[in-house]
């Protein structure tokens, strides 16, 4: 058990740390007319203050990430001594890591924005402009695999759950209840992935260029990648549950090896969802770098605090400008604030409950 926990948490920490370090490092390069998440004129990229700010931020970022990856790896050793303490300490460490990372991203953005204001690099007209590409909008709904491909997976999960539950119901140890819980979890994941696919793939398009071909290529690439990521993750999620259910049905109970295979398949779901992004992002940057008719919309005013806050934008989720593959909330919407409060309460509540259970055991 100790070695299992150690390896699982270590891989998780290394993977998360390296991913965050790499993905957010792109903000230190001048891309899409932005540096550190702020639009600045191309001719000002080599301004001494801009260069100094970028160099300092990059140095601090790398140092922070390296320290956190080392700390995260060290604390996994707790897995050999106490799983409960490992989980509790890991949660605290991870939350502090995320909070620190937010500060490391937000502070340079705010400094860059202040510099931009002081230097008068704000383009008033482009602040208020919204661009729509009619050709892109017209074909938008046909990008990527269709959402209905999630349906057969949902149907399979439902059918298998019902069949295995009927078989194991009434047995001692209540395996029937466990079947229901795990089956419901698998179906919940499918429904969530389906809903996310519907929302993200069929939502707003982003206009990067005056050339429709560039807009179609980039938006199509992003949407197809999302759609395929969700579908492949769902396939592995379904396979994980089907495997477990089949083994349960065959032998009436599960062994450690079965749980290991289940965990591996779920891990594969996460990995296959993230793998295509590296290639997709690099292709996206290629398309945009080759474009000679970029569209410039300076909406930094809505990002000046480090998060997106635009009362005139009705969208709840918008593309995170600090991370191409991510979405962030529009904090001007009350729903967004309530969701954040809810998630925070859930986290604090879970930690409190875990700590209380550990105290009870002592």
């Amino acid at each position, binding site marked *: 058990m100790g070695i299992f926990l150690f390896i699982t948490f270590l891989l998780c920490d290394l993977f998360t740390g390296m991913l965050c370090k790499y993905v957010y490092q792109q903000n230190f390069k001048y891309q899409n007319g932005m540096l550190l998440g702020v639009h600045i004129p191309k001719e000002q990229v080599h301004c001494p203050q801009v260069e100094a700010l970028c160099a300092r931020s990059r140095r601090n970022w790398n140092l922070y990430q390296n320290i956190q990856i080392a700390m995260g790896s060290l604390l996994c050793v707790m897995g050999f001594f106490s799983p409960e303490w490992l989980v509790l300490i890991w949660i605290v460490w991870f939350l502090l890591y995320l909070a620190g990372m937010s500060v490391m991203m937000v502070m340079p953005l705010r400094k860059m924005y202040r510099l931009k204001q002081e230097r008068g690099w704000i383009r008033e*007209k482009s*602040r*208020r*402009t*919204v*661009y*729509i*590409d*009619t*050709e*892109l*909008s*017209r074909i*938008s*709904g046909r990008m990527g695999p269709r959402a209905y491909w999630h349906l057969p997976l949902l149907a399979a999960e439902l059918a298998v759950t019902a069949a295995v539950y009927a078989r194991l119901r009434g047995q001692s140890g209540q395996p029937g209840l466990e079947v229901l819980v795990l089956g419901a979890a698998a179906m919940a994941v499918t429904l969530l992935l389906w809903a996310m696919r519907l929302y993200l793939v069929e*939502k*707003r*398009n982003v*206009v990067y260029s*005056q050339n*429709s071909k560039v807009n179609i290529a980039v938006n199509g690439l992003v949407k197809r990648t999302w759609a395929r990521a969700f579908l492949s993750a769902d396939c592995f999620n379904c396979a994980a549950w089907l495997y477990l259910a089949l083994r349960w049905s065959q032998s009436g109970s599960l062994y450690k090896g079965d749980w290991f295979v289940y965990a591996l398949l779920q891990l594969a779901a996460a990995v296959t969802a993230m793998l295509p992004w590296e290639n997709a992002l690099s292709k996206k940057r290629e398309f945009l770098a080759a474009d000679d008719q970029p*569209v410039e919309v300076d909406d930094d005013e809505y990002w000046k605090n480090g998060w997106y806050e635009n009362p*005139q*934008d*009705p*969208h709840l989720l918008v593309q995170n400008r600090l991370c191409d593959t991510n979405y962030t909330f529009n904090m001007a919407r009350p729903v967004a604030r309530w969701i954040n409060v809810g998630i925070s309460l859930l986290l604090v509540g879970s930690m409190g409950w875990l700590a209380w259970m550990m105290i009870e055991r002592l």
Partner: protein
Amino acid sequence: MLISLDIGSSIPIYVQLRNQIVTGIGRGELKEGERLPTVRQLAQDAGVNTMTVNKTYQLLKTEGFITVDRRRGATVSPVRQWDERYREKLEAELELLSAEARMKGMGQGEFLSLCEQIFAGMCPAD
């Protein structure tokens, strides 16, 4: 075709959308028979209510610039012969533009030259 909306402008969004679509048809960027985005998608991309886009499409349909079909959606109409009612509308708008140009000190020749230049740029695709 790229539509740009100024969200800080005093001109309503549905009017801006209508004007840009008409200009796009006039310049040949939107061709006859070409389908326009669905109401829902255009509203999503513009960040406006679907009723705003609906209003735009209804206005364009009334003016004869597009046709709206339940299955095919909105498509660009073919170029039509102007009628008396349109002539009256055009006269009223030109009268206002002429008055403004005159009051700003623009000469007739310059005004007509500008009109000619802009009109020459319009080539709706048949």
